[in-house]
């Protein structure tokens, strides 16, 4: 395997990771499932391309504004965020599964609209997107994305989102504006997906609505669940493993997706809460796990002692001769 190939896989994993981190906040921490985030990726990819593609010189070429990559990233993320705000206003009052179905419809709608709008090339796609995504660009965005998310989650705002996931009614009674925090989680996740879309477009140099189908949305959600709900490090691991896995399985040729599915099933059976379910691979996260474990053990020991004491008492009462 040569470096270019490995680099390619790493970049894809890094790009997936950005979208997955956003979903990690929405699904893992706030408890809302989405099967439409490829739609936000598509919005990011197309708006990003519109910003960076040079103006058309020949008839038949689709022109853009020829602006720098950074503008594309910001615009793509912002556009996805704006659309998610509109979507959230009409769908976030839906309960549980119904929200999930609404996002599914949204994702498909975005794809079908792009398929039928000729401005951006329709179903044939949009070639000639500049190749701006480099390993370093992806890495920098990944690091920023992880830091932002980790800091958000470990704050009162993040805790409020977790409270919404845990027990919506109790969260409301605890003074948490449930709708607002669902909205924030949705917008942040959409911005992340939008940025991932921009990087994806500028990595492939060609974008097509087909790339952002429901399969893509499902893949993202699978990675989040596979990595473990409510764990950022789990999402990172999940994105790396599940992006690399199909490549490692190339030897199986056309059977590789079968083996991919089987591998995911096997790992989920052996670790039902995902790779890292609820835990974090960070000093603070590990301390927390250790403390919880100690507390549980101490508590169980205490309960056992009490049981034993009670057992002795009961024995003493049962046998008349045993009483002092």
């Amino acid at each position, binding site marked *: 395997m040569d470096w270019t190939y490995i680099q390619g896989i790493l970049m894809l994993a890094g790009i997936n990771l950005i979208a997955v981190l956003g979903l990690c906040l929405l699904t893992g921490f706030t408890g809302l499932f989405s099967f439409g985030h490829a739609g936000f990726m598509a919005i990011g990819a197309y708006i990003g391309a519109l910003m960076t593609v040079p103006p058309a010189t020949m008839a038949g070429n689709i022109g853009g504004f020829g602006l720098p990559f950074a503008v594309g990233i910001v615009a793509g993320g912002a556009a996805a965020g704006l659309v998610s705000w509109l979507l959230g206003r009409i769908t976030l009052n839906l309960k549980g599964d119904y929200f999930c179905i609404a996002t599914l419809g949204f994702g498909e709608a975005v794809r079908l609209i792009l398929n039928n709008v000729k401005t951006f090339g329709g179903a044939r796609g949009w070639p000639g997107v500049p190749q701006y995504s480099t390993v370093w660009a992806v890495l920098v965005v990944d690091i920023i994305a992880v830091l932002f998310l980790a*800091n958000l989650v470990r704050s*009162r705002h993040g805790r409020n989102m977790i409270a919404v996931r845990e027990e919506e009614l109790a969260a*409301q009674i605890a003074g948490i504006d449930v709708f607002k925090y669902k909205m924030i989680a949705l917008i942040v996740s959409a911005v992340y997906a939008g940025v991932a879309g921009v990087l994806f477009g500028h990595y492939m140099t060609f974008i097509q609505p087909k790339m952002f189908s429901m399969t893509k949305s499902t893949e993202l959600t699978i990675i989040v669940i596979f990595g473990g709900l409510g764990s950022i490090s789990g999402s990172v691991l999940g994105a790396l493993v599940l992006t690399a896995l199909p490549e490692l399985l190339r030897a199986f040729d056309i059977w590789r997706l079968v083996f991919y599915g089987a591998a995911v099933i096997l790992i989920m059976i052996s670790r039902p809460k995902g790779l890292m379910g609820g835990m974090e691979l960070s000093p603070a996260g590990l301390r927390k796990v250790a403390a919880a474990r100690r507390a549980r053990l101490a508590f169980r020991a205490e309960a056992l002692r009490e049981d034993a004491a009670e057992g002795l008492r009961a024995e003493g009462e049962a046998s008349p001769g045993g009483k002092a």
Partner: protein
Amino acid sequence: MSANVLEVKGLTKRFGGLAAVNDVSFDVREGGISGLIGPNGAGKTTIFNLVTGVYKVTAGEVSFQGRRIENMEPYKIADLGVTRTFQNIRLFKNLSVFDNVLTACHLSAKYTIPEAILRLPRFRREEKVLADKATFLLEIMGLQDRRDIQANNLPYGLQRRLEIVRALALDPKLLLLDEPAAGMNPDETEQLMRLISEIRERFKLSVLLIEHHMDLVMGICEHIVVLNFGQKLSEGSADTVSSDPKVMEAYLGSSGGNKC
């Protein structure tokens, strides 16, 4: 300022044709412990849901400290200072005891999301205040040595206690307790009674509780409201209520009817 922290006037809630609560009026005195009792299905929990904004009222008024709160969003009502516990405990089950309380302390901090993401000074300062507050509450409520246990691994009685601690984290002025002694043995009920009185003194709040344990209700409630079939049956001190023939009838059946 009125001496009543909560005033309920002509409160009515209909689900389709069924009036779960029908024209109920009562007051909760500032700093008092009041009880809401009645047979199952009398509408007690519905009243809690109406007062805390979980349900929208069909008719009537709810005023908290002279301010109308009916049909407000639940989180706004909580923000004003009315909070509650639930009949079927609703903790943040997968979080530690400490995080349950820390989450509920959030109203004591004002930092914004950008401040949190960039870890600015106000974030650090206020996070410290929140952690101290949560630790303090756990200490005085005797849960400090269980702080790292996941909430759903706590024994039942302590889960109920934790739910009360979580409610106290909001600095409420009115605390609604929905069957706080459900599933407790007489010993634990006794302890709970003391705890409720202690909380009232220490946090200077008013309590309205729903309970089936009559010794608890009669023991600590200064004012009792009796409901039956969504209507107020009787109201007054423990003695007044327990000697009211209508109340006896509701609880024990009418004297002329078949006794089983």
